């Protein structure tokens, strides 16, 4: 690694001041699992690292208007094991549990993973399906953005120079809703997914037909993405083989996977349909349990 200035501010205001001072040459660091690794590989060479590790209060996981607010410095392990997350939005706790290894989950932070914006990550997939919002702070104040508008490209976000992620907010799922996150891992348990899929199904008052479905996918494009054309096919439908097959086929039109050591583009395309079908089935069954119709 090249030498750089290391700053460890004690407050958010101080952190923003240092970011302003260094401009685009500064990078924010939290857990370091992504950034330090990329620096060791000389893929990034910032002139200043602004550590958020000594800023108090950024790691809280708390309720927020009936939903949850996860502070940017909460670790993946804290999100995975938080009784609040497990009780209110269990699919989110389960998603964090699927990331890498316990050791990495002790380091990697909720906000750092978003700012890193690697489309192979797991939590953004589920957070996208949940309609989460990112809380951003800059010298001009705070703003919020739907996660769908936050990811712009491979490793690129809507963060402006001098801004940082302070939290992610997730609204409570409506009644009669079920959710699932599935990660297809043909190699090792701690790998990135070949294809990852999250599905959230909310049922009509009859507890059988779908009122709304949300499907998000990871590792099959330059950002995590929603399969909106597949979602549109599901409203008003009951769970059937043909509905699942049509939704899977529609999801394939939303993705643009690359060939790599986790599978060829053609294989990932086919597996997208398979994983969407499986995630929808699980989410639908969970929704029926929530609605009491199963």
């Amino acid at each position: 690694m090249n030498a750089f200035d290391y700053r460890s501010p004690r407050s958010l205001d101080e952190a923003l001041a240092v970011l302003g001072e260094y401009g685009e040459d500064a990078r924010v660091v939290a857990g370091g699992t992504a950034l330090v690794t990329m620096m060791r590989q000389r893929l990034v060479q910032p002139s200043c690292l602004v550590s958020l590790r000594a800023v108090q209060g950024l790691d809280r996981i708390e309720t927020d208007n009936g939903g949850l607010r996860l502070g940017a410095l909460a670790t993946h392990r804290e999100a995975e094991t938080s009784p609040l997350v497990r009780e209110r939005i269990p699919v989110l706790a389960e998603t964090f549990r699927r990331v890498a290894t316990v050791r990495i989950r002790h380091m990697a932070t909720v906000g750092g993973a978003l700012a890193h914006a690697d489309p192979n990550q797991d939590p953004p997939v589920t957070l996208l399906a949940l309609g989460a919002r990112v809380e951003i702070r800059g010298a001009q104040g705070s703003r919020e953005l739907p996660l769908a508008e936050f990811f712009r490209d491979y490793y690129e976000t809507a963060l402006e120079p001098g801004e940082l992620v302070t939290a992610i907010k997730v609204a409570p799922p409506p009644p009669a809703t079920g959710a699932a996150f599935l990660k297809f891992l043909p190699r090792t348990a701690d790998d990135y997914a070949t294809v990852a899929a999250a599905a959230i199904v909310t049922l009509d008052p009859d507890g059988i037909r779908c009122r709304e479905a949300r499907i998000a996918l990871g590792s099959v494009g330059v950002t995590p993405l929603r399969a909106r054309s597949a979602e549109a096919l599901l409203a008003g439908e009951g769970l059937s083989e043909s509905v699942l097959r049509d939704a899977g086929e529609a999801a394939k039109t939303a993705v643009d996977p690359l060939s790599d050591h986790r599978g060829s583009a053609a294989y990932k395309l086919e597996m997208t349909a398979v994983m969407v079908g499986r995630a929808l089935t699980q989410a639908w069954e969970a929704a029926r349990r929530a609605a009491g119709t199963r």
Partner: protein
Amino acid sequence: MIRLTVNGTAHELEVPSYRTLLDCLRYDLGLTGSKEGCGVGVCGACTVLLDGKMISSCIALAAFADSREVTTVEGLAQDERLHPVQQAFVDAGGFQCGICTPGQVVSAKALLDANPNPSDAEIREWMVGNLCRCTGYYKIIESIRVAAERSRA
């Protein structure tokens, strides 16, 4: 300047910004038990505890440990007596060539600190990030099982 406590001993060190915690432990403090395997946080040979939580020291900056407590494999044995996890690895044959062993032992200690009575599934999930290129996994799992049983006895 960073101040950190390693295995109960306080240190004040002047380190370059790019010093990893692993290099700081090995080269500044002479604690060569923690190894560098992959250098990207995957293999677990560099596992240490930071305030009791296991981390990859190869992708942590030394500065991350400022004002914190680090435990390495050298800190496990007390008064010339092996830590129960170390003794179990010896008795159950939990290592072959040995290079992954410090990381395995530190991870296993962290597991039993957090969960003194783990199921086999919990042992496997916890240890998934500690690779053994000799593929001696069954005896590593057995060693952890033995250490847990002895601590209950």
